């Protein structure tokens, strides 16, 4: 089971790859759209990358509830 820090680091790598976000900026309180400038289609790309990396399924209706980096981390922790 990866630690919260591992998940945050893995998520940071995905954010950098998909949306050009500096990994150090991807802290739990950050909103994807408002703080990190990630648009709705990039959110889909992040979701599919998270599914591949962490072995979780993120249905579209759940994706709508993931607003911050912290939301994504807790979703991964709960569903892994």
């Amino acid at each position, binding site marked *: 089971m990866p630690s919260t820090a591992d998940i945050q680091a893995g998520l940071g790598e995905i954010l950098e790859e998909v949306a050009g976000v500096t990994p150090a900026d991807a802290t739990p309180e950050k909103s994807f759209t408002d703080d990190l400038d990630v*648009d*709705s*289609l990039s*959110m*889909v*790309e992040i*979701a*599919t990358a998270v599914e591949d990396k962490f072995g979780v399924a993120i249905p*579209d209706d759940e*994706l*709508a509830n993931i607003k911050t980096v912290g939301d994504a981390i807790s979703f991964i922790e709960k569903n892994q």
Partner: protein
Amino acid sequence: MTSIKMRPGAPGAQILGLGAYRPRRRVTNDELAQTMDTNDEWIQTRVGIAERRWASEDETLVEMACAAGGKALAASGLGPDEVDLVILASASLRAPIPGIGPQVAHRLGIPRPGAFDLNAGCAGFCYALGMASDAIRSGDARNALVVGVERLTDVTDMTDRSTAVIFADGAGAAVLGAAQEPGVGPVAWGSDGDQYTAIEIAAGRSTMTMAGQAVYRWATTKLTETLTEAMDKAGVTAADIDVFAPHQANLRIIESMVKKLGFGEDTVVARDIVQSGNTSAASVPLALTALLESGEAKSGDLALVLGYGAGLTFAGQVLRLP
């Protein structure tokens, strides 16, 4: 027992001519920004569209279909009396009875062909191409006209900025005939009907809604295998493809497909969406004619095409360009 006699068929079908009709009115992103909360940068980064064509009142589905169909016929070198099948693909008929395939055929002077409309959303043109090719191969048709035509602006909610900036109008057509050397590969088609609400005109409504994220995810994850299947069935690889012309839905979907398929460096990729927006069943023939007109693609090139959309439906094949 009296046996049923079948007609002799052909080894394959080929595209003999392509034609397109682009509505006169060009609508830029800046023009849209005057009436809705959007801007050029937002539209370009999300969907890759710089401008699109919107049909005027007189540019009806029938008029646009006849214009594109007439050009395809002229390019094919065939006379109207040599065509005996007309398949018209559209998802934007406001009155579904009657279908407009017979009327378009009549207007083009095609005498009493088998004629009907086909609604497979944005996949319609590629579905129709597969069916026309099979009708020629079986001997049920000598030559066929396939048209994709849309006035999506008739079914677009102009207050919904997520769809109003995307959808547009136009028509494209192909004339197919028999060939010793096949020019239309086997179709790779299918549907994911569990997502039937992803793109729909819901009961009681007159305009379309689209679950953008769901469609984007489906298109970027599920359709690579359809493209691979179309190439496998035709016995070619990505390295053999000269022209890749998928449905022009979203530039980011096109780039994602290109990244996954591994084409050669010389493969020409259709990005007609930048100038034409998303024209649903018309987008593939519009994109192909644009590439041929600009000289980026040439006669004899091997093209990989794919349509996908409402249903959800999808269909792709390998073609030899006329």
